[in-house]
């Protein structure tokens, strides 16, 4: 017992140190981007020689950047709706299965491990085969596919905390299954669903591989626009846009954490 007690602080000190190293490793690139965004220079230079918010106003006033932002937001919103419905439905359905639950769960999570390039190519060919032309609609569906497993995982985790006897009780009290779903089960996981939707939006908003492959020429989502801009001009505009996206991501993550917190 006393040995354990002495060992504990050392373990947690190591854990904290490791955590700091990992966090630095993940965040250092951002720490370079943030100051550059406030640079007054015309080229990407670190550290900036002069400070100014001029690249933010340049980006927000440039129709090309604004269109890209708008398009990203619209497609991400559509994909979020699709993914939230599909992922939530899947979480409810898989919970009811007696057998084959593990196998189907693996299938559900497949989009997380399949290379996005393969998914993009597959979608392109599938749409082509069906006689259509891959475009923004295809991109929306593709992003929804990517986000569905995230929603599924979050809602399934929320559902795990819901006693299965509640649904049976509601049935025995005279309610049909749609009524049980609407009045009992969905309200109990509403926070998980909302948190999952926020995460899904964040994921779709700056998704780049599918966007690069599937958006038609001239219609650029934000990541594609960043990519093109970086390869052409390398101005601090990219840093300013990135800072905006990071800001959005922080807000979304915060929101999702807030929503995911259990009511007591």
């Amino acid at each position, binding site marked *: 017992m006393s040995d354990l007690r002495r060992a504990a602080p050392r373990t947690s000190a190591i854990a904290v140190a490791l955590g700091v190293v990992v966090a630095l490793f993940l965040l250092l690139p951002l720490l370079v981007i943030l100051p550059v965004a406030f640079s007054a220079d015309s080229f990407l230079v670190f550290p900036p020689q002069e400070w100014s918010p001029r690249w933010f106003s340049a980006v927000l006033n440039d129709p090309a950047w604004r269109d890209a932002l708008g398009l990203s937001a619209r497609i991400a919103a559509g994909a979020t709706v699709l993914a939230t419905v599909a992922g939530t439905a899947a979480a409810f359905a898989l919970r009811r299965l007696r057998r084959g639950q593990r196998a189907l769960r693996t299938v559900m999570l497949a989009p997380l491990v399949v290379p996005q390039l393969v998914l993009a190519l597959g979608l392109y060919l599938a749409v082509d085969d069906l006689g259509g032309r891959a475009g923004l609609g295809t991109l929306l569906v593709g992003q929804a596919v990517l986000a569905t497993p995230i929603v599924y995982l979050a809602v399934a985790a929320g559902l795990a905390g819901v006693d299965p*006897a509640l649904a049976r009780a509601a049935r025995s009290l*005279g309610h049909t299954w749609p009524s049980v779903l609407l009045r009992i089960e969905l309200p109990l996981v509403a926070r998980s669903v909302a948190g999952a939707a926020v995460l899904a939006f964040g994921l779709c908003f700056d998704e780049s591989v599918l966007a690069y492959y599937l958006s038609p020429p001239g219609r650029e989502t934000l990541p594609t626009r960043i990519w093109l801009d970086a390869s052409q001009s390398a101005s601090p505009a990219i840093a300013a846009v990135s800072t905006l996206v990071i800001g959005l991501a922080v807000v979304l993550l915060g929101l999702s954490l807030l929503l995911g917190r259990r009511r007591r």
Partner: protein
Amino acid sequence: MSVEIDELTVHLGGTRILDGVSLTVPAGSFATLLGPSGSGKTTTLNVLAGFVAATSGDVRVDGEPLLDVPPHRRDIGVVFQNYALFPHLSVGRNVEFPLLARKVPSASRRARVASALELVQLPDVTDRSVRSLSGGQQQRIALARALVFEPKLLLLDEPLAALDKQLREAMQLELKRIQRETGTTTVAVTHDQVEALSMSDVVAIMHEGRIVQVGSPEEVYRRPATRFVAGFLGEANLLPVVDGRAALFGNPVSGSGITVLRPEDLELTAADHPGTVAATVTDVVYQGSRLRVTVTAEETALVVSAIPGELAVRPEAGDTIGVRHRGGALRALADA
């Protein structure tokens, strides 16, 4: 409403869980399925509620077939072991929930919720969160919710298992009172024999997917049909029947084989008291209102439950003592 269960059989995943269960519960009575875990009692309840499908057999409520009716149209109130109250709804909304499905107008809903809460003696908690209630209160709310729509049948799944001992005894009386007041035919499931004996009009003892004996609490306790029932309902001294009489004591027994003497049917007397069997005390356990004394008579171990105040001397291990039977009709076990 009377309930007739006829040759109910349930197979789940290749295992036979219920094996031809038949039971008639008269209208307005309180029946308990009593048995150890795995005996099939909960499965029987789940078939009645519609949560488990029967493989074969039939159930009729007031003569109407039940098994083809989906759970939400059975009009059966179920109180779950952990109560299954909806945590996101207030007490009032919980109790109101079955009335919403039945499209009861809101004024009448309020009145019925109030009278259901009155029935379970918790009239002032309508707006409380169910999480703020104690276990005993949650139990009452679950009962109010299961009764507010005046169900044909009330099912109780281990209704008292989650309560501590004192509350459990109070709730036994409460359950019985509410059941009598509403006159709702009730089927309860429990593994606790004291609970079953004190609440029920009819006790059905289940073992390995079958009902082994049905009767009034007194019948099943006093005259168990099988060795299993005898042992499950309390301590039992099993004695062979010799020439129509119980060994050692010589009481007449109907039937042959083995008969049961309950520990409280035996009485301790001074040694060599006329008409008693000489025995040696092997163990004495003080249990408050009772003294559990184990004795050996002619190489047969007997358990005697004595009332401490009735004994002249408190027996100690090694004492020689007399044992006699208080009398009464005995019946032999069917399976021994």
